[in-house]
């Protein structure tokens, strides 16, 4: 029981004395923590940016609707006939006809160019058929085939998948996400090596202490302990500093982002790092700090022999 108590006391001592040691050299500690925090904040900030933009695509319902813009020469009547014909396709669920008049009325209502339209001699808008494929048709290739075959119809000027831009945005986001992962790995290794190097210098500065401890019978794990805790504090401190940095950045960007969102009809809310994400950030930073120290100690302690 006394032994267990002593063991806990050793841990507690190493835990707090390593923090105390860092605080006694504030300049060096701040320099290291700032460098680490910048690396972590870069990864976390990029992650948060992507998470914010992602809301753009998340809110939009995934629809495979295809719009067929008919040639100007095609009348509303022949447009309606064509719609009937397309409705018989096995892959098509439904077809809506938007006549030239309907299109004009809609445009007048939403665009605000009403007066400009009045100046035109004739309606410049084509008849549009909205084709909704059967819901079982989700494969991109088959959809593409349907669009091509519709595009080839003589009355059709051009066919377009309405949500193509969403799909493009989605693949851009997937790319950005992968970018975040890669960047995080690179910056994470930077954190690993920076803490490692800091611990190496610390070990060098305390060489005499390590040698004396070894001479009076200290095991490697006893000697390592305070250094591992130093790594922990550096990593954890940097994680907290990085979180602060990212949050301040978001506070500065909040207003312009909100304005942009409002202009697009409140398409997204400004997102900050949540509780789970913040805890994860601090945890990963602390683990990187400990691992960086551990790698260096593993190799350097064996070389540090008395005499």
């Amino acid at each position, binding site marked *: 029981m*006394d*032994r267990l*108590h*002593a*063991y806990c*006391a*050793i841990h507690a001592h190493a835990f707090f004395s390593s923090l105390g040691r860092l605080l006694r050299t504030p300049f060096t500690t701040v320099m290291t923590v700032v460098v680490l925090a910048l690396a972590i904040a870069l990864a976390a900030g990029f992650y948060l940016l992507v998470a914010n933009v992602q809301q753009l695509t998340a809110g939009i319902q995934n629809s495979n609707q295809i719009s067929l813009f008919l040639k100007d020469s095609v009348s509303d009547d022949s447009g309606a006939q064509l719609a009937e014909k397309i409705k018989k396709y096995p892959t098509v669920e439904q077809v809506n006809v938007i006549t030239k008049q309907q299109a004009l009325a809609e445009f007048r209502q939403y665009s605000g160019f009403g007066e400009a339209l009045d100046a035109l001699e004739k309606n410049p808008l084509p008849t549009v058929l909205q084709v909704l494929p059967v819901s079982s048709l989700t494969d991109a290739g088959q959809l593409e085939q349907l669009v091509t075959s519709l595009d080839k119809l003589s009355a059709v000027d051009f066919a377009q998948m309405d949500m193509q831009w969403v799909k493009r945005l989605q693949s851009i986001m997937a790319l950005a996400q992968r970018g975040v992962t890669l960047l995080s790995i690179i910056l994470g290794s930077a954190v690993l090596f920076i803490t490692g190097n800091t611990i190496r210098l610390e070990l060098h500065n305390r060489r*005499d*202490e390590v*040698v*004396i*401890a*070894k*001479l*009076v*019978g*200290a*095991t*490697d794990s*006893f000697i390592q302990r305070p250094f591992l805790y130093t790594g922990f504090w550096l990593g954890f401190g940097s994680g907290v500093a990085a979180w602060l940095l990212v949050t301040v950045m978001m506070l500065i960007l909040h207003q312009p982002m909100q304005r942009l969102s409002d202009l697009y009809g409140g398409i997204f809310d400004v997102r900050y790092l949540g509780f789970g994400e913040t805890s994860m950030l601090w945890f990963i930073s602390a683990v990187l700090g400990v691992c960086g120290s551990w790698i260096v100690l593993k190799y350097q302690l064996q070389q540090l*022999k*008395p*005499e």
Partner: protein
Amino acid sequence: MLNFDHVSKRYADGGDALLDVSFHLRPGEIAFLTGHSGAGKSTLLKLIAVMERCSRGQVLLDGQNLNKAKDRHIPYIRRKLGLIFQDYKLLQDRTVFDNVALPLVIAGVGHQEICRRVRAAIDKVDLLGKENKYPQALSGGEQQRVGIARAVVNRPPLILADEPTGNLDPELSAEIMHLFEAFQQVGVTVLIATHDIALVERMGHRVLKLDHGRLVES
């Protein structure tokens, strides 16, 4: 207690530090290790503290063959030894108390026991009242006594001292030597490396004399 059996030590550069050295120290015995500088005194002590390994022969401590000890067992072997150095090797940024307590902290001794034993060790070397001083505030003789208190606090069966009086005047040296005799009287084995022949002769204990790596007198 300590047994050297035809021990030789050759360094990587080809120099022979020890040649065919054999001797035996009984428990509770006190012995001086003498010889000119470079005769192999330090090497011999390093072999016992497993800071070096011998090239031939074997060193037995309490029946354990040090040459075959695994690296991870070395700390536990060193806990059986009290090491004392010419340059004291104290931690300058720790108090006298913390310096003396170090071996006990490392061994995982409980807090109350540490306080009790550190106080007893400091008392033995006559430094009570100076527990909270830093080594720099002490004289050379006092620093060496702190080093001795640290060496004996864990009650090791064998004390090794490498030129413990090298930096001290004759009066202080004699004082330190009497401390070692006091430890011997309670059953501790003591091996002291020194080239202070006059002091050795005055003390009249067993002498192991090295000359160019060979044991010429035991």
